[in-house]
């Protein structure tokens, strides 16, 4: 199984406009995927079947919504994929920990720092902050920040 299988699997799952190749040398990932909420888990399954691993997971806070980022990588050259999914404030996201155990902690971290809940996560506790903390520090309404942007300003495409 390889990176090409993954691309093929993605093609069957998403509309062609949601998958775009990028310049690996400039961006550090060779494929960017804009997913919808219910496509997160199927994408993880395709990645798992194609022997990719979940390298990292994080989120970015924008004025209009959170963007949750999944970085998948194959054991090859220049084969990193950035999957981006928009989550409206106050909404949740399905877990991918059913596919990748790595997501168990990554999702705990995102929940801890951003307050995004994950449905069906078996053990959604805070990871880094004490359990009695009542804030989510990486939100842009917490602490000192230099302006809040909208998704379009950074990613240059409308929120899916």
């Amino acid at each position, binding site marked *: 199984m390889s990176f090409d299988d993954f691309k093929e699997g993605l093609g069957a799952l998403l509309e062609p406009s949601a998958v775009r190749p990028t310049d690996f040398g*400039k961006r*550090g990932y060779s494929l960017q995927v804009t997913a919808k909420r219910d496509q997160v888990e199927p994408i993880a399954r395709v990645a798992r079947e194609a022997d990719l*691993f979940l*390298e990292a997971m994080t989120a970015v806070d924008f004025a209009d919504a959170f963007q949750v*980022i999944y970085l998948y990588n194959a054991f*090859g050259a*220049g084969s*990193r994929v950035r999957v981006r999914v928009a989550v409206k404030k106050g909404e949740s996201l399905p877990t991918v920990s059913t596919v990748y155990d*790595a997501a168990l902690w990554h999702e705990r971290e995102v929940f801890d720092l951003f307050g995004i809940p994950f449905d069906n996560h078996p053990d959604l506790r805070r990871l880094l902050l004490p359990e009695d903390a009542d804030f989510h520090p990486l939100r842009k309404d*917490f602490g000192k920040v230099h302006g809040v942007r909208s998704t379009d300003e950074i990613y240059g495409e409308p929120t899916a």
Partner: protein
Amino acid sequence: MASQLPEPIVEQTYYLNMGPQHPSTHGVLRLFLKLDGEYIIEADPIVGYGHRGHEKMAESHLYEQFLPNTSRMDYLSGLLFNHGYVAAVEKMTGIEVPPRAEYIRIVCAELNRISSHLLWFGTYIMDLGGFTPFLYAFDDREIILDILDRITGSRLTYSYCRFGGVAKDVDDEFIRATREFIGRLRSRWEDYHNLVTKNVIFIHRTKGVGVINRETAIRFGCTGPVLRGAGVAYDIRRAEPYSVYPELEFEIPTGAAGDAFDRYMVRFQEMEQSLRIIEQALERLPEGPIRGRAPRKVRPPKGDFYFAVESARGAVGFYIVSDGTGYPYRLKVRSPSLSNLQVLTETLSGTLVADTISILGSVDIVVPEIDR
């Protein structure tokens, strides 16, 4: 007449808190163990005692101001984190680095990798009960720290890289001392192997202990020696070549079984490969400037970028979202120890409490890097 037999043993699960102030947990890590006698049923590593909020700090600091933070995440291979961050910003902004600076970076980074592995080696064997190898390893490591101290100005938390180059040029004394060290360390391998690798107690405590196979490593996203010990020849230095690594010859050592012994051997062979890299880099070290043209205030273009380097513990990645100003909009550090520690939730269950030390040590975590 009442029975003289002792009361029957009541079977119950027992909870044990290992850490956060336990010398073998390497930093402030707490392991919450659910035990059945001597066997672990469930292990729950609890992290976050050293959380300093580096990622939040980044959002209110200029790109230049954030540089010293990077070497404080993984304090054992600070230069590699330094290099990763600087290289990421250089790639985003399009800053050129002169070849001499690239070679100096590689020499220092590989020295740092060896010093990190030597510290791991010494403390790991000490955790397993052998004190002498610890002194040997620290003796060698001290020389690296002296060499790097002369050039970077600090022994542990180096902020040596600059956007577009390095802070200070190296001199003949640096090259001489490094060459001498290569010869010295090579003559030490035999001592190390006689002291430890061939030691029966060591072999019994590591062979077949803490097996992390390929499938598990992929599920948990492990990288570095943990993944290579499981037989996957994946190294960022080869998979996503950066700096001058494509010009240098070195191999990627791998294990087969994925047990603690394999991870030990992989790290040992990595040190040998690092020596090879340093040797080649010193031979090719070109003349020229050490700082390229970099703007006084770095302002990367809008967008998101990811750049990874191979640290002593695995793939370190910087995911940076830029809004076009001098401050990162979001900076996420992908730390290898987080995934490498998480795999223990699975690997530790079913093993003996005494093996916890051996398994945890063989994974080689640095807790502040997980906590960030």
